[in-house]
């Protein structure tokens, strides 16, 4: 066999052995600290309960809810379509399979938004993108979507529109018949009619 080939083959084997000794490349995928800092101070990661309800009602296929509470909490109550990834399982194979779904917005939620925010930071640091946090968590979900409180009569029309939307969402998620609120109570107008003038007499 040609001597050059032997030299080249030995060189390749040597390089391969070098790779084994060097341990290959550093596989850790992390986003740069300055980028993370920028994203942490940016509030666009938050999604409100109203926005989420709207997307769930419209059956938005890009929504992937991620419940970061314990499995017991998840089993007792969770949002429709959610998967349970508690913080200690964030790096498990099941969690990896969840976050590898293409084209999804991953929305973290817990009872409030502190735990979900922590998980968001760790997950974002590992380079997973399209991550969101449900603002004020499930507590806010119950307060605003499941048991909406009617606005006081002096509030603007927008508050009543929002309330109507929430009542509709509540019916969607609970399936019960929550009485629809009527429009903002209208004050009775007092009409003071002008006293009829005396019939015109004569004239041209």
């Amino acid at each position: 066999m040609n001597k050059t080939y032997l030299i080249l083959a030995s060189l390749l084997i040597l390089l391969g052995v070098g790779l084994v000794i060097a341990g290959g490349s550093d596989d850790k995928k992390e986003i740069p600290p300055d980028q993370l800092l920028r994203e942490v101070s940016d509030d666009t990661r938050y999604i409100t309960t109203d926005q989420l309800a709207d997307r769930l009602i419209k059956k938005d296929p890009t929504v992937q809810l991620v419940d970061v509470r314990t499995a017991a909490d998840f089993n007792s109550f969770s949002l429709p379509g959610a998967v349970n990834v508690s913080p200690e399982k964030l790096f498990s194979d099941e969690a990896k399979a969840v976050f590898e779904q293409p084209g999804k917005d991953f929305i973290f939620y817990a009872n409030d938004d502190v735990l979900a925010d922590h998980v968001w930071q760790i997950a974002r640091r590992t380079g997973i993108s399209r991550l969101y946090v449900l603002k004020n968590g499930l507590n806010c979900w119950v307060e605003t979507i499941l048991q909406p409180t009617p606005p006081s009569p002096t509030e603007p029309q927008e508050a009543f529109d929002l309330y109507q939307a929430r009542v509709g969402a509540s019916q969607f998620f609970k399936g019960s018949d929550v009485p629809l609120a009527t429009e903002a109570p209208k004050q009775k107008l007092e009409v003071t009619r002008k006293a009829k003038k005396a019939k015109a007499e004569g004239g041209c």
Partner: protein
Amino acid sequence: MGPLIPLGIIGENWNNVIALLIGMAFGFILESSGFSSSRKLAGVFYGYDFVVLKVFFTAAITAAVGLLYFGYLGWIDLSLVYINPAYIPSTIVGGVMMGLGFIMGGYCPGTSYCAVSIGKIDAMVFSVSMFVGIFIFSEAYPLLENFYNSGFLGSPTVYESLGLSAGIFTLALILIALGAFVMAHFVEKKVKKVDY
């Protein structure tokens, strides 16, 4: 430092220009290495010429070793390098069809254009047929869509799927490649030479 385009060192708009230049260089080298001959390419199936196996296997291990060393030295961020998404059933069927086309026509898509560029009629017929195939596939896409998108595995690397480190896998690949080269050398010696 790298990859240059995803990190914005070279603008996104240069993507196609660079691809064109690399493509031309690739085509030139393919042609000058004799890859525009369908007999040479088909030789790997009949055992009289293993140059295809040698060239592509060498390219694969050279690129693998180079990229891993670049990654180790911090010259390239390997997590940003594009990895083809894997769809198992459609890849198997596609691979079998591609292999059949290769053995029947004597070219793979890239080499067929090399041969077209030097005026080979069989390659022209091959290229036109390829477009007919693409047209049929596109028209039948609604029927094939479910199968086409089935068995999606994300973008896994072979070494991760095998649970090995990148270094050990690459060393194994080098040894397999060298073994294949030695074997090809002996097969070539045994099989009757074909003139082309």
